[in-house]
């Protein structure tokens, strides 16, 4: 594709970057990115990806905007309370950047629609809030050979890594979902709103790095930060040979949601 004069002006701060340039901006424009969940992480990710000029942005979320979302889900405004999140997100993206084609899926990401939905995208952003779906996204992306960005936040902390086919996956690191209620989610334990912005923005940056081929992705590394100390740490992780989904002899060969595998974990003692 050829950029118009208006697009060259709009994206001039990208184009000025030696690593990006016109060529990189064209790669961004050709990119197809799916954001799963238009919430705390998906909201900032969508805003930056839209502003960056990602050609096609898919948004999947079955929820409607709730008043308690507005403290951190910055793509939704006060007037949007009660509106479908995907519609609210679509409206903002159109205002930020009419270049972007938005595909909305007003549904939740499930074992039945997962592979069908991700197959049309180059890169997937996990912006979901619960472990069964995070594992489902991991398994679907591993099986479908799709790169994705994982993200999790809680209280003052955030955690993220990027998966490319062949690099460590979520199950390499964590095996299987914790039993229900063993590990709190944001809706149970709270989260500082800006943490969602920090993490979702890291995920957007990883997406843009993937699309342009710039830099080193956060693969085989788990980044965690704690905003109380503002310490960022990366732990090198290695793909697990015995990983149940990406290992040498996978035992998970089809998708099953809320596969809690409670037998692997003992209930919490405290």
């Amino acid at each position, binding site marked *: 594709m050829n950029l118009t004069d208006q697009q060259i002006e709009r994206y001039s701060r990208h184009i000025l970057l030696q690593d990006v340039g016109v060529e990189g901006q064209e790669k961004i424009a050709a990119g197809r990115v799916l954001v799963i969940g238009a919430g705390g992480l998906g909201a900032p990710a969508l805003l930056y990806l839209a502003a960056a000029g990602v050609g096609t942005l898919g948004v999947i979320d079955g929820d409607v905007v709730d008043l308690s979302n507005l403290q951190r889900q910055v793509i939704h405004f006060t007037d949007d309370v009660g509106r479908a999140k995907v519609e609210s997100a679509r409206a903002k993206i159109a205002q930020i950047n009419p270049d972007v084609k938005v595909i909305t899926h007003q549904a939740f990401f499930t074992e039945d629609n997962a592979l069908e939905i991700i197959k049309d995208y180059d890169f997937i952003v996990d912006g979901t*809030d619960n472990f069964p779906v995070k594992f489902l996204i991991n398994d679907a992306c591993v099986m479908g050979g799709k790169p994705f960005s994982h993200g999790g*936040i809680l209280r003052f902390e955030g955690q993220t890594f990027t998966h490319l086919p062949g690099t460590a996956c979520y199950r*390499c690191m*964590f095996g299987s979902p914790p039993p229900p209620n063993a590990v709190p989610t*944001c809706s149970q334990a709270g989260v500082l709103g800006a943490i969602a912005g920090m993490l979702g923005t890291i995920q957007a940056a990883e997406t843009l790095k993937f699309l342009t081929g710039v830099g080193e992705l956060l693969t085989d590394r788990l980044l965690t930060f704690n905003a109380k100390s503002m310490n960022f740490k990366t732990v090198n992780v290695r793909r697990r040979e015995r990983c149940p989904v990406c290992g040498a002899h996978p035992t998970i060969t089809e998708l099953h949601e809320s596969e809690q595998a409670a037998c692997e974990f003992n209930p919490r003692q405290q």
Partner: protein
Amino acid sequence: MGNIKVNDNDQQIATPIALTELIAINKVLQPDMVSVQVNGEFIDREAFGSTVIKDGDQVDFLYFMGGGAR
């Protein structure tokens, strides 16, 4: 005494020490939920009890973190 690294921080500790003991000493909040790497290799949960940490080992504790959308 031995010197090990736990999540990149130096720790002086009597080695060898059982991994389960190291988890207890480090006051890991939910020992049943933590993922552990020793020298860059993940340890199967069932092997926590039989894994021994030696002088110079590098141990990483990884914690579940959910949250995002709702």
